[in-house]
């Protein structure tokens, strides 16, 4: 069957079997191996990608279900050579050890910050509670996400830097503009 989706901003059309899972489509067909494939049972969360900006476990989504949708993988986080604040945060705060859970953790963090730019520790821990770091490096992962929250990318238009309003849709829209 023909499947068409946008992956990291690029329109892609491929011929696939309906039973191909999104994680295998991304890794084996598109050769974007940054998305990891772990437990295969929607428990570990290393296969998380963003579908229309929302984190999903790609081992439990058919590639056909992403037809017409927009997918962001870890390869889509950076803009050219400029890392996303989440990626920078994982570097600054040592958010990875073996690195296996990292792509899923970073995409969930990106979606969290788009939705809620100033999460507290509990909100960060809840957001990543569907993901497993087998190095048990959760404390540094939480610190990495906090670092990203404290260092958002600012567009030229965004002059009022640190309005500390609570997370709301208006704030989310600002974050989206910054990401765009």
């Amino acid at each position, binding site marked *: *069957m023909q499947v068409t989706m946008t992956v990291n901003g690029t329109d892609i059309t491929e011929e696939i*079997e*309906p*039973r*191909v*899972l999104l994680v*295998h489509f991304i890794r084996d067909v598109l050769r974007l191996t940054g998305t990891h494939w772990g437990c*295969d*049972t*929607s*428990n570990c*969360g290393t296969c*998380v990608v963003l579908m229309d900006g*929302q*984190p*999903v*476990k790609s081992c*439990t*989504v*058919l590639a*056909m*279900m992403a*037809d017409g949708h927009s997918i962001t993988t870890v390869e889509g986080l950076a803009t050219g050579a400029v890392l996303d604040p989440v990626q920078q945060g994982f570097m600054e705060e040592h958010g990875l050890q073996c690195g296996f859970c990292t792509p899923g953790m970073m995409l*969930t963090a990106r979606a969290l910050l788009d939705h809620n730019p100033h999460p507290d520790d509990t909100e960060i821990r*809840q*957001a990543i*509670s*569907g*993901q497993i770091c087998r190095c048990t490096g959760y404390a540094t992962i939480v610190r990495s996400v906090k670092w990203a929250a404290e260092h958002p990318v600012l567009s030229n238009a965004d002059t009022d830097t640190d309005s500390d309003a609570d997370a709301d849709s208006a704030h989310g829209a600002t974050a989206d503009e910054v990401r765009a």
Partner: protein
Amino acid sequence: MQIPAAFDYVRASTVDNALALLERHGPESRILAGGHSLLPMMKLRLARPEWLIDINDLFELDFVVHDTSGPDAGTLRIGALTRHTTLLESAQIEALFPIITDAEKVIADPIVRNRGTIGGSLCQADPAEDLSTVCEVLGAIAVIRGAGGQRLLSMDEFHRGPYETAVAHNEILCEVRLPVRSRTGSAYEKVERRVGDWAVAAAGASLTLAPDGTIEAAAIGLTAVGQTGTVTEAAAVLVGRQPTEALFVEAGRLASVACDPIADQRGPIDYKRHLADELTRRVLRRAFARAAASEGPNAPAPATQEG
């Protein structure tokens, strides 16, 4: 590597279209909603449909509406394709049915909740599934559509047993209707080994208070402990009585006697009975506090209520 057996895939554009596709492709076709129960079962060959009919484009089944006038006045209607995340984040649901919000916080994990749907959960009918208990406690009505029109079923009629419902192969669960009652509070609590696991045991309760402060109506449900339907004997002891801690303790005891858990890797029978008892007490306390704190949206008049 776990890959489902080969199947054909089609996307439905409307409910009528989905019904026509079910009719055309016969009993080996399945509705695909969030996919977080069906796809794992297909990977394990526990399910092997020949056709998947994807209903994720049916936005007409994704809604939460509180009818305050018309024939369904006093009813909250939830579309079957409404995602767990939507239910969890709905302030309207938290105000009317906090039991749903309680349950959604502990259903799977935040990322699975982005995909999973209330309709999918009910139709999967896993004995450890939380929303089945919640819907039983709330006296939900399932709205099922087929080629011949729609039919309304109580949860007792809807559930046929573990993994079995009254929804025929050529029908679709479209909506869940919940009666909104004033002076009512509800709560849910689950014990799980870790985030995202199935319940070791869970309990839900709804209490409606009479103007004089006694309990006018009560429902208690249990999850994952072999209970079919609500625990009527535990609810019956509450009705007409003044809510007290001693009464809740008695209801907990009756719930632990009524259920029929099995020993498995999640715990022995004694432990599960203990949980049924303790969790029943806790949800009754919380449901009562909520009922006492809120007169409810449809309260005819702000009846004065003493402590």
